[in-house]
């Protein structure tokens, strides 16, 4: 109340400064990337005025259009499949007494998170290149399968968390009122679980959309996704067109993450 500052036990000298530096360092590079996407000139260093020129040129670039479409198709398929599989697995592994094989199930579901991505990528390259020779099929199926696998643990997390914090009494009540197990699931469990499922789907979608390494090794010729296209471009002379693509990508990610954050936020 009085203007006198009392001794703050939480303060540590210099910590706030380092923290500010960290936030500055986290956002400065991204801010620059976004700013130069609007540069009128060819350069990533000299500012020559504001323009949407590079967004237009990226939009009209056929390769970029194809890659974007492919990225979205893969991400939608992988996220739908991974979320369905993860929802079922979460229903099986939560709210139960420990059973034989539960640890095994946990371990296998989280396995993709424990192996370096490059290792999974080359292992998939080995297996899929064989299958491609045997079956003569070289479509997007391989990429969708690979993406689905590494998306499952991400989709599983929020769904499982939601299930574990859910009240069982409503389902018990439904069963008492002669609801069949399916009806109880359809009208009680599923609606209660929906936020978890949506959160899981969004995570899986973003994770699939962002993937570079596994896609780079699994894709057949001409199957570039947006990230692998960008990786290829970085080796050449870079124009702000890459910044424009990255900016749109970034904006999209931020929207999804914000939505995810608002949805899973603990209500206090």
């Amino acid at each position, binding site marked *: 109340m009085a203007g006198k500052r009392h001794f703050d036990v939480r303060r*540590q000298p210099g910590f706030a400064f380092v923290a500010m530096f960290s936030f500055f360092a986290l956002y400065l590079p991204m801010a620059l*990337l976004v700013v130069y996407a609007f540069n009128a000139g060819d350069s990533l260093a000299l500012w020559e005025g504001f323009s949407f020129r590079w967004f237009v040129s990226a939009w009209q670039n056929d390769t970029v259009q194809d890659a974007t479409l492919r990225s979205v198709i893969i991400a939608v398929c992988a996220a739908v499949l991974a979320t369905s599989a993860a929802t079922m697995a979460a229903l099986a592994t939560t709210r139960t007494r420990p059973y034989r094989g539960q640890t095994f199930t946990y371990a296998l*579901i989280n396995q993709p998170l424990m192996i370096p991505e490059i*290792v999974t*990528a*080359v292992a998939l390259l080995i297996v899929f290149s064989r299958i491609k020779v045997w079956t003569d099929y070289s479509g997007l199926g391989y990429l969708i399968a690979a993406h689905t696998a590494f998306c499952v643990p991400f989709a599983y997390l929020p769904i499982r968390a939601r299930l574990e914090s859910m009240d069982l009494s409503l389902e018990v009540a439904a069963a008492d009122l002669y609801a069949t197990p399916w009806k109880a699931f359809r009208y009680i469990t599923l609606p209660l679980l929906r936020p978890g499922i949506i959160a899981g789907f969004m995570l899986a979608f973003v994770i699939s959309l*962002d993937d570079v390494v596994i896609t780079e090794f699994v894709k057949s010729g001409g199957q570039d996704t947006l990230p692998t296209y960008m990786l290829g471009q970085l080796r050449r002379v870079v124009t702000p067109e890459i910044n424009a693509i990255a900016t749109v990508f970034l904006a999209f990610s931020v929207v999804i993450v914000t939505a995810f954050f608002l949805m899973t936020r603990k209500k206090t």
Partner: protein
Amino acid sequence: MQPHEVEQAAIRRGTMRRWLLSAPALVIIFLASFGPLFVMLAFSVLEKGDYGGVKPWTFSFDGWANVFFQHDIFTGELGFADAHLSIFWRSVRLSIITTALTLVLGFPTAYFIATRPRKTREIWVFLVTIPFWTNLLIRTFAMQEVIRNEGVINTVAMRLGMISEPIQIMYTDWAVLFGMTYVYLPLMVLPLYASMEKLDFRLVEAAYDLYANRFKVLRRIILPLTKPGIIAGSILVFIPSLGAYVTPRVLGGGKNMMLGNLIGLQFGKGNNWPLGAAISITLMVVVMVALLVYVRATARAGGDDRGR
């Protein structure tokens, strides 16, 4: 007798249902993530094909031998594969330094967030979460903009007259180091914050009452209590650093490879799949050991708490 059997049948049905429900997730992960690792193990002991791939059913331990040894091109003598060893060493060294740097930056950052009022804390956490979920390639590319010869650091330093010529940062180990620190910083901050959020500041207050100074409080109270977070963050940064592919490829260029790039190379221009498979398995084993150390360490930290 009768009810017991009914119960047993119900349990069996429950178990059956659980396995059926988990089946799709388990099958897809086995087919497209876990299973291929075994195929890779098999490939590591086959002879390399002339144009990539392997010669089927021709066993050879060349792939494994080549991880550490090589025949001299001219004399045919067997010596250490210096190039591979230096890449191994660089990967381990850069990963350790990256972990240390993210800890030095991340610890105060997490502490800062944890000591904010509850309302604003969420916003700070959100600010760390956004880079965490944005594309790693885009963030690497953003870092490139900063450290390039025509980038911010060099431009500003030259304008200020601190340097007359741009400092070459791109395509050096420094670039990889900066890039990885930048990219993996959120992975350090988030687990650290999780452990600091639970910090009981009454203990800190008690220490001050007992005439501890700020540094002593940090060293004797805050650090020991946040040890699980420090271990978790370090492992979360160390493991992806060791297997990094994108960041060293973009910022390190062709010369400053890390393990991930060495593996990738064997499946591309190197055309030596068994060697690539052997290096992959080596990397995987190192990561597994690191994870094991982590599990052991957290178990011990938990045991300490109980003993206190």
